């Protein structure tokens, strides 16, 4: 039974979808209950999977392999089978992200209580989205990865377009088009890889590309080909991450979608970009990745600075957060470019911690928006006096975001920069400017809202956060602090996996 664990985990949201189909659409209470319980289910499964996971082992665990599709091709040199397996499993990296996904999704399901209309279809789409995300992180071959990857695209399109603010449709469209381009590039790269190497499974691909150069030539896997594929893959994930010139869609989504969606989007979906870069870039093409490290580092720094600068001048809280996401994702790139243990660990940490922090902040902004009908900075001020809890949480989140020691943000930034300083000190030094800027814009926004002058007299925010609102916020904050104080929780999980990545890099 335990061998089916991951499958059960991935497809557990389907059960909720089935139940939801039979719930009448006007029965709000049942819908909400089903939604929350439905999101709890994968979380429980994920924790179970975690307990079954042996952190000391480096390889992929909880594996399941079934023959799926076979293409028979008759060629001049005989019959050739291209087969695709249903192959899932998890190593440390996957496990962390699966846990993160289940956790944030659960909280997001609570955060979506503020949705008043079309709740039924919301939850249905939500669970399909969760299925896709869980699948993405546990897929062990390219095909499956791509299927799940695209599977997140469609529900997300609906979720953005149907639930959210005024310009949500536009946001949905730009989400679709940009991510469409990304996945298009990805698909071509994957198929080319498949046709040339004859396999789609990660481990087999790794083995193939570890072959001597002469053998690779024979399979037409020339250096140019490998480089081309790597660049294509990186470009595809760069859209997702997003890397600077390709980031506009993400701003729109963050500004227009419903907070619960943005929690998921910023907390998990963006992480697919980072995950993909680590998994495919580093995992399969370590050599080629090395030669691109300089470029990636520069891109990371650009991201960091650009995001920070623009966040400084935003008047909308959501925009501030959106740019801060751009900026923080730069840190992931920086960590990756370092290509050493610290760097990569930093990148992964950043992935997780930004997931938690941005989820928290977006959730809070959503809460405020519900009270005030706006998220413009100048509409707020003196929040601490009327909504102390909310103000406190906001402050805590802001501090986590700027990297206060003791919170998760600090560890990741610290490690990423530590890694980069080891190899590219100049670039890293430029990057640190971004950290300072971060502190400035976060404090400007957060302090302005919590303690600043009330811009307009008689502003009434209404009641402080309800229990349903407090729960997710406190859970997230707790997670942030726990990781910040006890990073070994992650690094222990990650250690063995990092080891294998390092092996691929040649020590």
């Amino acid at each position, binding site marked *: 039974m335990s061998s089916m664990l991951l499958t059960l985990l991935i497809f557990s949201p389907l059960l909720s979808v089935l139940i939801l189909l039979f719930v009448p659409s006007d029965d709000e209470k049942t819908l909400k209950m089903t939604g929350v319980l439905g999101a709890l289910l994968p979380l429980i499964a994920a924790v179970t999977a975690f307990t079954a996971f042996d952190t000391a082992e480096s390889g992929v665990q909880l594996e399941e392999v079934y023959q799926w599709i076979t293409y028979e091709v*008759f060629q001049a040199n005989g019959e050739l089978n291209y087969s695709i397996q249903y192959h899932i499993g998890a190593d440390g990296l996957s496990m962390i992200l699966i846990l993160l996904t289940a956790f944030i999704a659960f909280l997001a399901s609570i955060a979506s209580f503020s949705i008043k209309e079309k709740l039924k279809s919301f939850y249905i789409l939500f669970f399909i989205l969760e299925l896709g995300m869980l699948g993405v992180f546990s897929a062990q071959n390219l095909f499956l990865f791509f299927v799940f990857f695209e599977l997140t695209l469609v529900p997300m399109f609906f979720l953005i377009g149907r639930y959210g603010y005024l310009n949500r449709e536009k946001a949905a469209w730009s989400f679709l088009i940009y991510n469409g381009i990304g996945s298009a590039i990805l698909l071509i790269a994957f198929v080319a890889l498949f046709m040339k190497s004859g396999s789609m499974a990660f481990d087999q691909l790794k083995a193939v590309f570890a072959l001597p150069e002469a053998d690779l030539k024979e399979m037409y896997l020339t250096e140019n080909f490998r480089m081309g594929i790597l660049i294509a893959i990186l470009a595809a994930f760069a859209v997702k991450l997003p890397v600077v010139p390709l980031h506009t869609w993400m701003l729109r989504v963050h500004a227009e979608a419903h907070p619960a969606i943005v929690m998921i989007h910023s907390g998990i979906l963006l992480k697919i970009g980072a995950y993909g870069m680590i998994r495919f870039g580093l995992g399969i093409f370590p050599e080629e990745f090395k030669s691109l490290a300089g470029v990636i580092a520069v891109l990371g720094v650009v991201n960091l600075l650009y995001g920070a600068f623009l966040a400084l001048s935003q008047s909308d809280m959501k925009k501030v957060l959106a740019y801060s996401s751009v900026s923080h994702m730069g840190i992931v790139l920086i960590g990756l470019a370092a290509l050493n243990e610290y760097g990569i660990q930093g990148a992964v940490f950043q992935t997780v911690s930004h997931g938690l922090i941005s989820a928290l902040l977006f959730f809070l902004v959503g809460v405020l928006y519900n009270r005030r009908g706006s998220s413009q900075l100048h509409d707020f001020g003196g929040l601490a006096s009327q909504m102390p809890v909310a103000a406190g949480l906001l402050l805590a989140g802001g501090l986590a975001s700027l990297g206060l020691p003791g919170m998760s943000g600090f560890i990741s930034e610290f490690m990423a920069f530590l890694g980069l300083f080891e190899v590219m000190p100049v670039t890293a030094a430029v990057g640190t400017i971004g950290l300072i800027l971060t502190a400035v814009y976060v404090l400007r926004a957060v302090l302005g809202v919590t303690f600043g002058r009330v811009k307009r007299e008689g502003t009434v925010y209404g009641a402080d956060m309800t229990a349903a609102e407090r729960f997710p916020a406190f859970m997230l904050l707790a997670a942030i602090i726990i990781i910040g104080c006890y990073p070994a929780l992650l690094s222990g999980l990650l250690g063995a996996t990092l080891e294998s990545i390092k092996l691929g890099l040649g020590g």
Partner: protein
Amino acid sequence: MDTDALLSYNWAIMAPEFTILGVATLLSVLDLFMGKNTSRRPLLWMALAGVAVAMAFVFAELDTDVTSILHDTYRLDFFSKAFKILLLLGGFLVLLLAADYRKKELQEYRGEFYYLFLTALLGAMIMASSADMITLFVGLELLSLSSYILAGIRKKSGKSNESAFKYVVSGGIATAITLFGMSYIFGLTGQTNLFDVVETLQEPVLLEHSFLLVFAFFMTFIGLSFKIAAAPFHMWAPDVYEGAPIPVTAFLSVVSKTAGFIILLRFILLTFIAAAGIDRDPLLVQVQPYVIVLAAATMILGNLGALRQRNIKRLFAYSSVAQAGYILVPFVSNSTQVFELIWFYLLAYIVMNIGAFACLQTLTRDAGSNDVSIFRGLFSRSPWLASAMTIFLLSLAGIPATAGFAGKFGIFMGALGPEPGHYVLAGIMMLMTLVSYVYYFNIIGLMFFRSGGTGGRRISIAPSIGAVLVFCAIATIGLGIMPNIALDFFFGQFDVNEFFMNTGHNH
């Protein structure tokens, strides 16, 4: 051909064709002698039964060895069986669509509709299992002539007539061009039997006339590309689709297109497989750039054309042009994959496109308009219909977990498999897929994001349409998740030698 030889033929293998022919004849006689005001519904059931019986015969023949009778003009091999299954499946579904077509004009000419439909189907089936230029041509024309009339069957509608006339003219020109090419093939070889043609084409003396052979290739290829509405001859499609009643449109875009690909495979591949082009290179390799241009042009024109359509039938016309472009891609794959890829894609195309047409028919009838705005707010009016339509549109757009994706994935494999891979073509195809997102998702957006539409009243779905919708939706999803069901069926039986070798004489 004496009496004994004729009696010795295994006529049983023609059972599917005889069934269709018999039913068509029977229906035409019955229709003549039925009273003017008698309902023509029994004819529908008979036609459906006929198609089902023919389908049963095809399945019963699956184990039959390759047999060819009538001096190889009729040939039963797996290729023909596999494609006949597609044709009959498509035919069956379209007939079900027609069961609900309540337009007054069509009612009046119902009888004609049924038996012309069957004769068209018969023509397509003859094409699927003939290996002689004359029978191929006769089958093609049987299909074409019947379709011309079908397109104009609402003879009191000016649009229907106009579309039929345009169809006749462009079809006639295409036929003439094809025939002109065929006449040169006959001239070079003195044979009309395809296998004899192949044999004769290997004579060294023909190398001196390779120019003529290349000429013949282009003429036939261009002429035949009319049937599939590929680039130089796609302009008829929008007009004809718009003018014809929806069941006919569905027939043209699905069954007729399948038939077009059948003849392309049977005729072009078989005839020219061993032919030498100019300078003695293999002809099929030499002309590949042109096929690529054709495929690319078809995709581009189809997708860009669809972008600016407001009329939903025209939109689907352009979309089907684009789909034809995709299916042309495997022709450059240089391997036997071309059969399986085309077969599978056509199968997927049949279920998804007929499903979409079923929705269209319900909606256009309900709204009395062909404007794309009929989709407004469909989800709130009729969630099931909207969900089904979404599945079909997603499949047409090639989103994973749908049949369309499995098909497109295969096509990419075909394009990138050979060395060097056709990256440009794959890139164009991917880009065009993205363009297609715009119009497919635009419909989805209308259904889900907008409200309004025809007064918000609910839409009733006729039982037969419901059956089509359910079947197509299940098949679309099923083939998307488990494409191996269909692929294994194909691989289990398909033998490429059987297609290219002249075996199976039974005398």
